[in-house]
């Protein structure tokens, strides 16, 4: 009698393989044998956008949506916030961010630390750079749209969890002439970002940007491991398709064990 639940053996094996490959890749990255992450245009665009904001004398804006600090896209957003806060402190560009209640504390810490590192702690004030409007998706969106109308930011960065509200704030940002950079893994948000953003990071490009910013071996190793995982699953898919075309259901049977 099998100790496994029916249909879960293949699941378990794939999970173990992914687990081990992530661990190995992170170890390799920590030993300095990590792979280089290819340049991502959106990251250069962030620096360009902050420079643009400095020239125009307008603020830069960033938000990760409403997610909690435990969500991977929000963690990627916080890495980008660190970069933006550092650059804004360096170039004296006012920074405005909107966070949900889950990540508010982490955001305040990151921004305060960035200003302190640049030797301008007096420019940071709680409630000035990091704003909270509401936990509700559309209430927050309405607040952000109003903020764009009043403050007219030169750069808007949206990296995190975004859904249908992306069209609303994307258009509101476009109306004030902001350069817009977006990234999300949510399938509902990606097409809306594609039509409203100037630069787009789809899915894991966000995590790759966060990894290339922080140069953290854990994050780099994670990206490597994810590539390995995707290769494995892609190979299974291709073998399965070929097998089905040849009239064999072997892959389906194997994956259903």
């Amino acid at each position, binding site marked *: 009698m099998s100790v496994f639940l029916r249909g879960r053996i293949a699941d378990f094996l794939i999970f173990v393989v992914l687990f081990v490959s992530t661990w190995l890749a992170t170890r390799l990255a920590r030993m300095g044998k990590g792979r280089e992450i290819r340049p991502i245009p959106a990251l250069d665009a962030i620096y360009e956008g902050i420079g643009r904001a400095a020239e125009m004398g307008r603020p830069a804006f960033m938000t990760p949506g409403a997610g909690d600090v435990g969500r991977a896209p929000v963690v990627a957003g916080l890495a980008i916030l660190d970069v933006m806060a550092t650059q804004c402190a360096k170039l004296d560009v006012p920074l405005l961010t909107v966070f949900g209640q889950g990540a508010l504390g982490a955001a305040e810490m990151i921004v305060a630390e960035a200003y302190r590192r640049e030797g301008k702690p007096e420019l940071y004030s709680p409630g000035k750079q990091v704003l909270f409007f509401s936990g509700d998706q559309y209430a927050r969106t309405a607040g952000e749209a109003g903020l764009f109308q009043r403050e007219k930011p030169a750069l808007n960065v949206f990296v995190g969890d975004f859904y*249908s509200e992306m069209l609303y704030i994307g258009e509101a940002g476009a109306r004030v002439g902001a350069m817009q950079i977006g990234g999300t893994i949510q399938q509902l948000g990606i097409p809306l970002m594609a039509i409203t953003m100037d630069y787009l990071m789809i899915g894991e490009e966000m995590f790759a940007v966060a990894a290339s910013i922080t140069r953290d071996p854990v994050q780099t190793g994670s990206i490597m491991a994810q590539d390995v995982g995707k290769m494995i699953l892609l190979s299974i898919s291709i073998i399965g398709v070929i097998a089905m075309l040849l009239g064999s259901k072997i892959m389906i049977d194997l994956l259903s064990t």
Partner: protein
Amino acid sequence: MKKEEGASVTIWSKALSVRPEWFWLIALILIIVPMAVPPRVPFKVNDSTLRIYEYVKKIPDGSVIVSGGLGQWAFIYETSAAFMAFLTQIKNKNVKLIIFPLSTDSLMFEPWAVSVTGFDKVKEYGKDWVVLNYVPGGADIILPAFMTNIKGLCRTDLYGTPLEQIPIFKNVNSYKDITLWVDCGANSIPSLARYVAPYKVPIIGFVHSAYYGMFQPYIAAGQVYEMTNGIRGGGEYEKLVGYTSWNLGTITMDSYQLYSIYILALVIIANVGTQMLKREEKT
């Protein structure tokens, strides 16, 4: 498009710099007029909606249907058309409906939908339908518990009556007693596919158009039986059941007819205008 100083203002440059508020006003008129004077535009019923209608038609007497979805109220408006058509279809069938809300807004919405369709007028509460209490914790926590032990998870219904005293629950306690699960929420299909589908309970989803393409893998994998395609699917379902007291799908199709032509016209103007302006700049 930026105009250089001294450049002549052509009809195309004017067209491309019209204030958005004028576009919005035209859109508003095109949406409202068909609501006031409904033309009842004809449209075909898609295979997916037809499959759902036929499946529900063939549900045996005495079946237990669970309606459980999560989502914000405003998003539920799009799926409400199909959900209300579904309630209208089962209104005259000998089936039992258990409303198990997965979010606070679903808890408000589903009983309201029941009253709008008149379901509660022909069915007896407690015997033919019941609304369970909302249990916080998220779909990931409460769905596995619900599937294995309904009375263990929900002690009472929404009005505080213990489930042991409610006639429906005399013979209903787990997934074995559920014939069909319908989802009228905004984004519940992934959770249902994960926690309800393994128990081989068929799932029918009334989903947004935006999610219709996205959730197709679940149908291909056999985890979800079928889904309606947003408001159009709602309109199709309303047509199949002979229209409902809500009729949102049918009304929207009338407005969408003009709105879609308007969008197409705008895109054509924008593209032609861009090309014409490029030519003018070259010359």
